[in-house]
């Protein structure tokens, strides 16, 4: 940001080690590397089991394979939004108001939005193949779409600026509001659909009779995507930590520049 960054060590009143850490900008640790490798192995497994080893479904043929991505992404998205809600609460109700919770909430929401987009895309592709339409006004689908839009809004609010604490408080409130909004949306859509069951697209229901290998592939998918989620959250929240650090380090430089104005003034 600041273009005139002098040698950080020369800045008085600067935590030099924090600054030198930020130049390296590393977000990984030994643990996250192991996690990353494990994730990679499982993703390879998923590809093999999902595309090669598992059998096609009797009625849906190979389109059933979308499920191995669709279900895990949906699971991860819900997990991510759950984590966002929980972290928002932890930030707001813990006395310390730790920014670490805020960053976890933000990282998790970003990843959740990404996976929810994947869920919606894979879901509508599967719907086209199975139901003949991309979209059905089914309660679960509609709630999912609302969830997606809600967290897109949440991310927009996170980008509003202001101090770190201001960002954290505003988005934590919004994160909790989203948690109370979602059941209401789901409940209303469910009630709506159950009162007016218009025979549009509902059947075939899409329930798959799964054999052992298919179940196992789905299981691999769930584990692989869960690990991927944790790996992404770890790195993203560390990257956010570095961004915050960067802002603070910039502040040290800016403080020196700002105080220097005094001398100009006294010379003038």
């Amino acid at each position: 940001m600041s273009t005139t960054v002098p040698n950080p060590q020369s800045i008085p009143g600067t935590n030099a080690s924090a600054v030198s850490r930020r130049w390296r900008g590393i977000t990984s640790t030994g643990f996250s590397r192991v996690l990353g490798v494990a994730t990679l192995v499982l993703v390879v497994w998923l590809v093999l089991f999902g595309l090669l080893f598992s059998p096609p479904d009797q009625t849906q043929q190979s389109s059933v394979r979308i499920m191995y991505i669709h279900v895990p992404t949906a699971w991860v998205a819900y997990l991510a939004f759950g984590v966002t809600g929980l972290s928002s609460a932890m930030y707001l109700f813990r006395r310390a108001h730790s920014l670490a919770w805020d960053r976890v909430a933000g990282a998790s929401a970003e990843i959740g939005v990404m996976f929810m987009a994947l869920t919606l895309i894979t879901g509508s592709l599967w719907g086209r193949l199975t139901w003949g339409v991309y979209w059905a006004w089914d309660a679960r689908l509609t709630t999912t779409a609302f969830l997606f839009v809600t967290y897109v809004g949440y991310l927009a609010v996170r980008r509003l600026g202001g101090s770190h604490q201001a960002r954290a408080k505003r988005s934590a409130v919004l994160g909790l509001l989203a948690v109370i909004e979602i059941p209401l949306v789901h409940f209303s859509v469910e009630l709506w659909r159950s009162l007016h069951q218009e025979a549009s697209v509902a059947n075939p229901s899409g329930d798959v009779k799964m054999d052992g290998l298919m179940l196992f592939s789905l299981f691999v998918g769930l584990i692989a995507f869960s690990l991927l989620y944790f790996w992404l959250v770890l790195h993203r929240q560390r990257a956010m930590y570095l961004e915050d650090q960067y802002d603070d380090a910039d502040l040290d430089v800016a403080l020196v520049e700002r105080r220097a104005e005094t001398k100009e003034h006294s010379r003038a």
Partner: protein
Amino acid sequence: MSPVEPVPAPSTTVAIAAPVVALRHVVAVLGRFPALAGASLEVQAGEVLLLKGPNGAGKTTLLRLCAGLVPLVRGEAEVLGHDLRTDRAAIRQHVGLLGHQNGLYADLSVRENVRFWGRTAGASDGEINAALTQLGLDGRLATVPAGRLSAGQRRRTALACLIARRARLWLLDEPHAGLDADGRDLLDDVIRRAVGAGATVLVASHELERAKALATRIVTVAGGLVHNESPDDAGADRGGRV
């Protein structure tokens, strides 16, 4: 994290009670810009402190910080005995800020504005009317919508709202701006009466001649820092320049 040169202990005005405002190495940012870069300031009860300094020196941010509107990023700050880091809401109701904006509702009349702000602070009708009278707003002007007033008249209305709110700490940011000679006399009178009633006043102003007559102490704000000056710096009655 570390302060720059430690600012010398503030003046030794007659003070027994805890200071009304106590800032130590306060840093406050506007976006990424550190408007206050380690400012320290102590103000005792009953003082009228004049903040002078060039544009962009940090005077407005200092006042807004004392009002609890701008969070402090580093340093310590106590206002009216409350720690601003943990207790920003506690000082409210006791602080009155006249900023660059007047906080008036353009569609409401002068009287309605003063009444609304007075009532939210629990002022009685008598106090509200007294505030209007004190600023010469009880006549024809009282029924004019605030949006149709001149800049100086709006300023006067804002001052009346401030009086009706009965604050213990007054933070006045360029209060002279837009006021005519009469208005300035009224302002001086308002400040004197507030101090007489036990309030403490911080004034940021470029109208030095005017404000110096009122001030019990003067400090210079520059580069986000506060520099103390002797109260006699203005060459007022008690002696010359150092």
